[in-house]
């Protein structure tokens, strides 16, 4: 049992992180906290991806033997590069999303002078909008 848990510990960690993030996104009243939750959520996924790429006993996928192209390249010596590539893209996407979300938070703050969801709802109800 313990073996099982340890052999997949990367998954447990990312699952916990993701649940924290998801909870914050849905359950928190403060909009910034929601945004932070979103970031945690995305980071958890990124960690998950990166952990897929790991191979026991392998190193970063930068070929040291470059220039002496004669030696055969041993696949097992280098970790899987694809998840890293995907995550470079995903990181950028997550930053961009955060940026847009922050911009919309600025708009909200300008209008309501608060970032608490319930207060905003109250203001909107009062103004009838």
């Amino acid at each position, binding site marked *: 049992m313990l073996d099982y848990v340890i*052999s*997949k*510990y*990367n*998954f*447990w960690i990312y*699952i916990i992180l*993701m*649940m924290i993030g*998801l*909870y914050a*996104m*849905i*359950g928190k*009243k403060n909009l910034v906290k929601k945004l932070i939750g979103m970031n945690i959520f995305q980071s958890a996924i990124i960690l998950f991806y990166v*952990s*897929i*790429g*790991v*191979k*026991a*006993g*392998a190193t970063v*996928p*930068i*070929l*040291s033997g*470059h220039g002496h*192209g004669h030696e055969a*390249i041993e*696949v*097992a010596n*280098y*970790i*899987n*590069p*694809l*998840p*890293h*590539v*995907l995550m*470079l*893209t995903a990181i*950028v*996407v997550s*930053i*961009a*999303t955060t*940026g*847009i979300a922050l*911009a*919309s938070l*600025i*708009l909200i703050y*300008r209008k309501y002078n608060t970032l608490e969801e319930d207060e905003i709802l109250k203001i909107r109800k009062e103004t009838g909008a």
Partner: protein
Amino acid sequence: MKVIALIAVIMTGALLIYGVEDMPKWSDPNSPASSHVSPQYIQEATEKTATPNIVTAVLADYRSYDTMGETVVVFTAAIGCILMLRKKRNGEGG
């Protein structure tokens, strides 16, 4: 809201944990992820793209279209922020 959030989170977590059971062990070199597409990257990338860093080779060559999309995402976000935040220089504390 908190209750809904909790239910959603627990359901998601349960689903994820359920899936873990059939996952390959961590850092298993023979997992499908490491044995289907990626070996060929490692073997061929340097030769075909003349780049020792395989991540760079995949990023900028094999999957360069993704990377283009990535830059477009940044561009989109930038223009989006401009669109949202410009205007109202006068008044309203902006």
